């Protein structure tokens, strides 16, 4: 008969505790991070809008990802892998593993995007999630990837928040943001329209709209412009006539359309229909500005974009070697030039693969470390830095203008200025937020 003493109980408890903890420890050693590839292939998750209003951008993103996978696996002409300054990629997949992919449909809805990302991580064992065409979606999926312990390489997301107040250690953005648009546009607007202007803002009533309005207001007011009104418009608005009419009644001589997608197409079309561009106010020609341009959207607005300034992350007409290689590769495969959405997603896929190669692992923490502070060139935007403090890429920003005499359906925008990266760089702390610690998951 044994007598249970207090000391004996403590000893037995310690032994049992160690025993129970042991399997977890060994599991963690065996799978040090989420979805560590075990066979001869690695799976990437492409989470793009395949339905909903941005389905065409999503389709272009998917084309770019398929091209990137082809190039990573040694197929095709290699595209920008040939011009990329890092030579870690060898065309034999990533770390010798063949690249495979699964796709998800974000539907441009945060809930749907999280559900498709979760499915790709849990069911398809994707080691990285990338893509998207909305800041709301990017922020939501980025947070999910942080919790799940996988890397998120953002697609088209322009809000300051993605790498500002909502930044995460596992999330990285190559695309530029609202602040950069404002900083790049202001000097061009000042030079073309003067420094004594009265601006009227129409702003899409959601996160991206607010940060874009704030960025453009701050930068234009700093050079002397006055903001006479800033009106929020519902995201679901289709006819903007009742928002345009008050502009005519105001003293404004510039209309800033902080709209994207269908909103931008409709508000710009309505503004031109109402004759704003033919108007003379305060002795000056009335002007319209679209801070974020997309070639796919410009196509929707048709001739209304002519002569209107905006900014863009990349354009197929750039003449650097990286852009030329990408346009050739994409154009020969699909028959038309890539959009900026296609460009940024292709670059993100290549940058992720390159970081894995340089880190020698798919472990998100190793990959993040390889991306942080990484400087590169040859990817279409000139010398670029993936800043360690907020995981935001800093590179040249393009100021563009709707082309007066387009020669084809793709030739809608002309590059007015390539704003140097230094001019659009800001202190990482100004938008708040904390990266937190990298999460390898498992």
């Amino acid at each position, binding site marked *: 008969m044994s007598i249970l003493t207090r000391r004996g109980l403590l000893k037995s408890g310690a032994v049992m505790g160690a025993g129970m903890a042991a399997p977890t420890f060994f599991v963690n050693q065996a799978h040090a991070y989420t979805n560590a590839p075990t066979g001869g292939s690695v799976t990437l998750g492409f989470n793009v809008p395949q*339905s*909903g*209003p*941005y*389905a*065409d951008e999503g389709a272009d993103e998917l084309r770019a990802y398929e091209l990137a996978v082809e190039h990573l696996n040694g197929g095709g002409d290699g595209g920008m892998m040939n011009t990329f300054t890092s030579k870690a990629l060898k065309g034999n997949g990533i770390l010798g593993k063949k690249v495979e992919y699964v796709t998800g449909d974000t539907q441009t809805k945060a809930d749907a995007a999280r559900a498709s990302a979760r499915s790709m991580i849990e069911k398809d064992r994707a080691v990285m999630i990338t893509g998207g065409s909305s800041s709301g979606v990017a922020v939501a999926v980025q947070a999910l990837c942080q919790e799940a312990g996988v890397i998120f390489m953002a697609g088209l997301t322009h809000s300051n928040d993605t790498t500002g107040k909502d930044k995460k250690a596992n999330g990285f953005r190559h695309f530029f943001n609202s602040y950069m648009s404002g900083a790049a546009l202001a000097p061009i607007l000042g030079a073309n329209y003067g420094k004594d202007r009265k601006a009227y803002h129409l702003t899409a009533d959601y996160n991206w709209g607010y940060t874009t309005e704030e960025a453009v207001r701050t930068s234009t007011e700093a050079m002397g412009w006055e903001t006479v*009104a800033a*009106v*929020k418009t*519902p995201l*679901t608005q*289709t*006819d903007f*006539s*009742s*928002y345009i*009419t*008050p502009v*005519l*009644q105001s003293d404004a001589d510039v209309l800033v359309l902080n709209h994207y997608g*269908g909103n931008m*197409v*409709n508000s710009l*079309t*309505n503004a031109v*229909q*109402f*004759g704003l561009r*033919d*108007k*003379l*106010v305060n002795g000056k020609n009335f002007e319209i500005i679209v801070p974020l341009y997309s070639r*796919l*959207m410009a*196509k*929707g*607005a*048709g*001739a*209304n974009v002519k002569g209107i300034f905006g900014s863009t992350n990349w354009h*197929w*007409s750039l003449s650097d070697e990286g852009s030329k290689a990408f*346009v*050739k590769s994409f*154009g*020969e495969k699909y028959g*038309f*030039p890539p959009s900026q959405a296609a460009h940024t997603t292709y670059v993100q896929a290549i940058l992720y693969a390159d970081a894995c190669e340089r880190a020698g692992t798919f472990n998100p923490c190793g990959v993040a470390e390889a991306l942080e502070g990484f400087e590169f060139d040859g990817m279409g935007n000139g010398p670029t830095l993936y800043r360690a403090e907020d995981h935001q890429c800093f590179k040249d920003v393009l100021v563009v203008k709707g082309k007066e005499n387009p*020669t*084809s359906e*793709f*030739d809608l925008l002309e590059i007015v200025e390539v704003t140097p990266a230094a001019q659009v760089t800001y202190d990482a702390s100004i938008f708040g937020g904390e990266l937190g610690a990298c999460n390898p998951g498992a």
Partner: protein
Amino acid sequence: MELSEFIAQIVNGLDKGSAYALIALGLSLIFGTLGVVNFAHGALFMIGAFCAVTLNRILTWSHVVIDETKTDFLGNPLKVNVPYVNDWFGVETGAAIIDWSVPLAIVFSIPVMILVGIIMERGLIKHFYKRPHADQILVTFGLAIVLQEIIKFFYGANPIPIGAPAAFAGSFDFGTMFGFDPNTIIYPYWRIIYFFFAALIIGAVFAFLQFTTFGMVVRAGMADRETVGLLGINIDKRFTLMFGIAAAVAGLAGVMYAPINAPNYHMGMDFLVLSFVVVVVGGMGSLPGAVAAGFLLGILESFASMDTVLQVIPGINQVVIYLVAIIVILTMPRGLMGRKGVMEE
């Protein structure tokens, strides 16, 4: 608020109200004749707009000519698309035909939309006449989603710009007519045309129902379907045709709307919910009610979107129509011009 601002918003509301009224008129027509709550009606508006897109594509159907003097984005000689109409009618006439593709689409869309309406009614909706309204809503809403996905498959998700004829580009300075400063009340010519076109269609539908034998039978059927049937008249056949006419009304609204906002596959859904609110406010099954409520809500929505109003009541622009609907339903449960007994069983 200045008087010019007030007038500008009323004018604004008229063209928005025109679209609501046209869609709601078709909805009421279908509900009044067949007793069906048709949630696919917005999709008919969208298909109408895509009739304009389709005719434009037919008219711009081209063959390729290589221009050796220019290069494409890959540096190859530029392939220039030359429309066949330019070859057949000469460059100037060909360009004029393409320029007038939207007015031409009116003629093109009428038989197309009547056919779409009849196929929709005979192929699907007739099977739901005796089912509860909830079933009708579900099946027609599902049909709307299918139709918009079909359009997206063929035309993509991005808006497709279709211009009004160059003769109607630009805008009319209303302000100077009323003694205001130039450029204070401007209104695009095409929107003015849209308003008068809507008035014409609404007038034509009412005249058709009021002054033709066919219309008289339909009205009699709306009032007492059973008795009309007992008189030996095939009322079902006439109601099917009315469905086709209602589809054509929605389609025409869509065709003419194409130059106002670039058509996209989702545009029907954007109008659908508001049009239903219009029908409910106007009174279920009441054609004059639908038209009156369409214009009333269009004008109210315009006023609610003004910055001066938004500063006092933020967000009112997004809820004003629903607020009015609640007030109307609470005070007049049958809507502005609703008839007794409709949807009250």
